[in-house]
C-alpha cells in the first residue's frame, strides 16, 4: 500500500497520510523512551545489586516513567532572570527536532519503512549533527558557568568523535557502493558487516557512545563536576525535552548500528521462518542492552584523555580501516 502511495503524485491526502504515519512512529518512539528509561534503571539496578523502581505500577515499576513524566508536566518552569530568554526557550526544540527527523530514513523491515531517499546514511549523519547546536545554545543561553562549560565540552566532544564516526562507515559504503540504508541491509544478506568490518564496528560503537553523551563519555553533563552540564538551569518539561532527545538518539543510534553492522532485518541462517521485524527488534535490543551495560560498567573519562583518544587513536584507526576495506574489496569482491 505504502509503495503505491510513494509512487502516486504528491497531494494533500498523501501529506496527511504521511503525517499520520509519522505521528504513529512518534508515539512508538515515545513508548520506547518510556520503557528504555525503566529498563535502564532496572538493568543498572540489578547490575549494582539493587532492585530499581518497584513501587509504581506493579512489582516491576511499569508505570514509574509515566509518573515521572506527569510530574514533570505539572512542575513549575523557571527561567532565570539573567538568561537569554528567546534562545533559552528555543534550545530544547532545536535539540529535539533533528533527533526525530533522523528516524525518517531508518528502514525497520522489508515493508516497514518511511522515507527511502538515496542518501539515507549521509542524511542521518548531517541531521544528527544539528542537535549539538541546540545543546550549545541551551548551555550558552542559561548564563550559568556550569552550563556554558557543559555546552562547550559537548560541542568539542561531538565534533571530535563525529570525524571517526563518519570515517568508520566509509568501509561499509565501499563494500555496498551505496548510501541507501535499504541497499546496505540487502548487501548483508549473506554475511553481516560486523564480520567483514570488525575494526569499523569497534570504532563506530565507541564514537556513537561519545555522540550519545553516555558514560564513559558523559563529560558534558558530568554530575560530580558540572552539576548537570548544559541543562542545569532547565526544569520541568523543557528539561524533559533534553532528556527525550537523548533517548530518541539512543533509539536512532541503536537502529543505525543494527542496519550498518548487524544486518538489519536479515535472519540468522536456518531461522528464516521468523519475520524480519522480529530480527530487527532482537538485534536492536541487544545494542540497547550493550549501551546500558557499558554505563553500569565503565567510569567516566577525563577531558584530556577524551580528546586525545578521539584524535590520536580513533581517527588514525578509522583512516587505516578505509585502506583495509579498499584492499579487501580489490581482492575478494
Amino acid at each position: 500500500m505504502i509503495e503505491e502511495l510513494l509512487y502516486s503524485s504528491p497531494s494533500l491526502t498523501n501529506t496527511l497520510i504521511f503525517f499520520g504515519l509519522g505521528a504513529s512512529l512518534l508515539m512508538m518512539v515515545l513508548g520506547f523512551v518510556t520503557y528504555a528509561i525503566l529498563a535502564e534503571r532496572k538493568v543498572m539496578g540489578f547490575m549494582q545489586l539493587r532492585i530499581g523502581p518497584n513501587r509504581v505500577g506493579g512489582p516491576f515499576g511499569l508505570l514509574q516513567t509515566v509518573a515521572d513524566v506527569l510530574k514533570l508536566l505539572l512542575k513549575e518552569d523557571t527561567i532565570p532572570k539573567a538568561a537569554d530568554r528567546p534562545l533559552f526557550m528555543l534550545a530544547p526544540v532545536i535539540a529535539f527536532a533533528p533527533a526525530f527527523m533522523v528516524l525518517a530514513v531508518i528502514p525497520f523491515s522489508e515493508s516497514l519503512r518511511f522515507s527511502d531517499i538515496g542518501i539515507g546514511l549521509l542524511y542521518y549523519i548531517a541531521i544528527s549533527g544539528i542537535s549539538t547546536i541546540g545543546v550549545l545554545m541551551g548551555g550558552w543561553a542559561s548564563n550559568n558557568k556550569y552550563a556554558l562549560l557543559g555546552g562547550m565540552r559537548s560541542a568539542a566532544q561531538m565534533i571530535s568523535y563525529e570525524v571517526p564516526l563518519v570515517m568508520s562507515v566509509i568501509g561499509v559504503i565501499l563494500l555496498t557502493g551505496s548510501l541507501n540504508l535499504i541497499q546496505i541491509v540487502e548487501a548483508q544478506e549473506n554475511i553481516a558487516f560486523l564480520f567483514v568490518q570488525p575494526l569499523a564496528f569497534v570504532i563506530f560503537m565507541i564514537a556513537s557512545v561519545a555522540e550519545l553523551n553516555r558514560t564513559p563519555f558523559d563529560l558534558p553533563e558530568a554530575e560530580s563536576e558540572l552539576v548537570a552540564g548544559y541543562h542545569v538551569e532547565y526544569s520541568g518539561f523543557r528539561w524533559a525535552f533534553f532528556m527525550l532527545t537523548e533517548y530518541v538518539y539512543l533509539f536512532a543510534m541503536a537502529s543505525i548500528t543494527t542496519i550498518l553492522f548487524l544486518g538489519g532485518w536479515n535472519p540468522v541462517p536456518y531461522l528464516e521462518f521468523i519475520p524480519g521485524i522480529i530480527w530487527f527488534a532482537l538485534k536492536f535490543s541487544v545494542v540497547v542492552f550493550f549501551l546500558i551495560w557499558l554505563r553500569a560498567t565503565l567510569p567516566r573519562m577525563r577531558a584530556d584523555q577524551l580528546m586525545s583518544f578521539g584524535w590520536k587513536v580513533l581517527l588514525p584507526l578509522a583512516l587505516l580501516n578505509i585502506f583495509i576495506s579498499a584492499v579487501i574489496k580489490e581482492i575478494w569482491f
Partner: protein
Amino acid sequence: MELYHLYQNNYLVVLMFLLLGILLPIVALTAGKILRPAKPTKEKQTTYESGIEPFHQSWVQYNVRYYIFALLFVIFDVETVFLYPWAVAYDKLGIFALIEMTIFIVMLLIGLLYAWKKKVLKWM
C-alpha cells in the same frame, strides 16, 4: 515521471517528520503552560551557582583550544565529503582512484601529524 513522484514523496515524508519534531515540543509545552503553576519569586529566578550569590556574567572568553579543534574538525569533515562519493563510485573508478585517494589521505595525515607534533591535540 513515477520516479520524480517517488523523489517528491520521499522528501515530503522527511518534511512531515520535521513538522512533527517541531510540533511535539510546542504542543507539549503549551499544554504544560496551562497545567503547571507559575509563581516566580526573585530567589527562584537567580542563576544557580552552588548556593552562593552569582557574580559576574557567565558569557566570558573561553579556552582557545575549542577553536583549534573546530578548525581540525572542518578539515577532516571536508575530507569526508570527498571520501563519500569516492566510496560510492569505487566500482567504476577502480585501482587508479585508490592510489589517488591514498595520496590525498596521506597529505591530510601529514597535517594531523604536524598538529600532533605541535601539541595541538593535547588538552590543556
